[in-house]
């Protein structure tokens, strides 16, 4: 009945809402059950990373990079250290590169496990949440053995890492790989092909490739739309060129290309690719190399004046650090280019004419971490 006048309602979702993945507030303009527009309001977890970048020395900033994207601390450390090393023109020992790649890929798996688990819980499937947290706990135990911390590690330092692998650690990682491969299959049986899950996610929140590129989306959000872009291949850093792995892209298997299900499935496939990388890294690991992992860490970090941008592939996309140095022990300015902030910006474009319950599915598939959005 088009002649009937309907009244629009403005609704707040968050900042306290279990499905907003933190303290995000969405302002929804709804017409009945249909969402007319979404406006994200951020800043509830602003933790002044750039202020810390100005006030602290280079090694002291690393713990604060941990707390940006707290699900992927190792990857944040890696990106920041890439920038500092580029500024210092520092050569990193080969053994350290291997250690970094192995822990970064383990962290990627841990991060994707949380993303998949909470996404399932948002949609209404609680069992995957319990399963993925069980498996994530195995990785956290490995990290605890290595670094002494469960979540925020401060493990990678400019030119090195904090500690060498303990005795028998590579075998433990090997055992994890054999443990985890069947678990991915289980997860696919439970969630990926589940009819209820597919009907909640397929054809929902379709992000066309051109829109994704225009909004500068990166990571699984971009690859879910079918664009093959991964910094580990397209702008290789560390020793990633030595490994063979595929970049999974969305195919539109269950619905439309670039829908919520595609973005979800990219993460499942990436976990397998990460396992492949870790396996190759363990095989090629320089076992005989007795280099001290802290040997190349400079005693005093005082880079020459200049500016540098370094980026790395985080589980959520391209994380970049832009550092301006004035020649002192503290950076003049540090700016973090956050993938979550950029990926969140595409939400208003996706959220036109959808149902309220689909917002939860779309937001879960974008997989934001508010610590990185607000910084």
């Amino acid at each position, binding site marked *: 009945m088009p002649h009937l006048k309907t009244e629009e309602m403005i609704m707040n979702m968050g*900042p*306290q*809402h*279990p499905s907003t993945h*933190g*303290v995000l507030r969405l302002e929804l303009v709804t017409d009945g059950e249909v969402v007319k527009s979404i406006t994200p309001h951020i*800043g*509830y*977890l*602003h*933790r*002044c990373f750039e*202020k*810390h970048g100005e*006030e*602290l020395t280079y090694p002291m900033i690393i*713990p*604060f990079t941990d*707390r940006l994207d*707290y*699900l992927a601390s190792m990857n944040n450390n890696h990106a920041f250290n890439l920038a500092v090393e580029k500024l210092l023109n520092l050569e990193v020992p080969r053994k350290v590169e291997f250690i970094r790649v192995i822990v970064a890929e383990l962290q990627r798996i841990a991060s994707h496990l*949380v993303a998949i*688990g*909470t996404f399932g819980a948002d949609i209404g499937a609680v069992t995957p*949440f*319990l*399963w993925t*947290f*069980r498996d*994530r*706990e195995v990785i*956290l135990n490995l990290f605890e053995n290595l670094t002494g911390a*469960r*979540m*925020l590690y401060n493990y990678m330092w400019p030119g090195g890492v904090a500690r060498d692998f303990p005795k028998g650690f590579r075998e433990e990682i090997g055992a994890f790989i054999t443990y985890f491969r069947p678990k991915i299959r289980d997860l696919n049986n439970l969630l990926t092909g589940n009819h209820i899950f597919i009907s909640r996610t397929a054809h929902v929140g379709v992000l066309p490739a051109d829109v994704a590129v225009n909004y500068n989306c990166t990571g699984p959000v971009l690859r879910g739309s079918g664009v093959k872009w991964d910094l580990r291949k397209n702008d290789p850093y560390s020793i990633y060129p030595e490994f063979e792995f595929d970049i999974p892209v969305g195919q539109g298997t269950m619905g439309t290309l670039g829908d919520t299900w595609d973005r979800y499935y990219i993460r499942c496939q990436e976990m397998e690719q990460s396992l492949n990388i870790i396996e190759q890294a363990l095989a090629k690991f320089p076992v005989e190399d007795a280099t001290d992992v802290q040997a190349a860490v400079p005693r005093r970090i005082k880079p020459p004046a200049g500016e540098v941008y370094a980026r790395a592939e985080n589980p959520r996309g391209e994380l970049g650090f832009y550092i301006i140095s004035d020649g002192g022990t503290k950076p003049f300015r540090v700016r973090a280019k956050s993938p979550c902030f950029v990926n969140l910006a595409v939400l208003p474009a996706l959220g036109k004419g959808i149902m309220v319950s689909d917002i939860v599915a779309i937001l879960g598939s974008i997989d934001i971490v*508010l*610590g990185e959005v607000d910084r």
Partner: protein
Amino acid sequence: MGLLDKQIDSGGVVITTAENVLNWARLSSMWPMGFGLACCAIEMMATMASNYDLDRFGIIPRPSPRQSDVMIVAGTVTFKMAERVKRLYQQMPEPRYVLSMGSCSNSGGPYWQHGYHVVKSVSRIIPVDVYVPGCPPRPEALIGGLMLLQEKIRKEKFGVKHEAV
């Protein structure tokens, strides 16, 4: 069947004080509000998930402040969020308890010195019952904090205004 059931299998009367039985009921089903602020929320989720399983203690997260007894402040409280935290606390029905989890909500933590945007301790806006230190605290530490809160509830006297430990 437990010992109690064997003792009173043909019906019976148990004599206790109203304080005891109400406190026992309250401490056995502390429902926290399921809301997280920052990194600590992930450890809180890990504690509620399969490995640490808070359901054992009768602790089940509730999505609404109206249904919850305990507020676990898990993460950095910024000035912008502080207003919301206070309002959420006021929406909770009494008796209500607050557990401050992690250095940030205890004291500002790593954001003490330069955190121009961070509330230096959540106790400045709402009364806190138990503080759990750590950045982030281990799940065992959170469980320890919750058990401390249970002990506090067990000793509660009616008619006496409750104070923070």
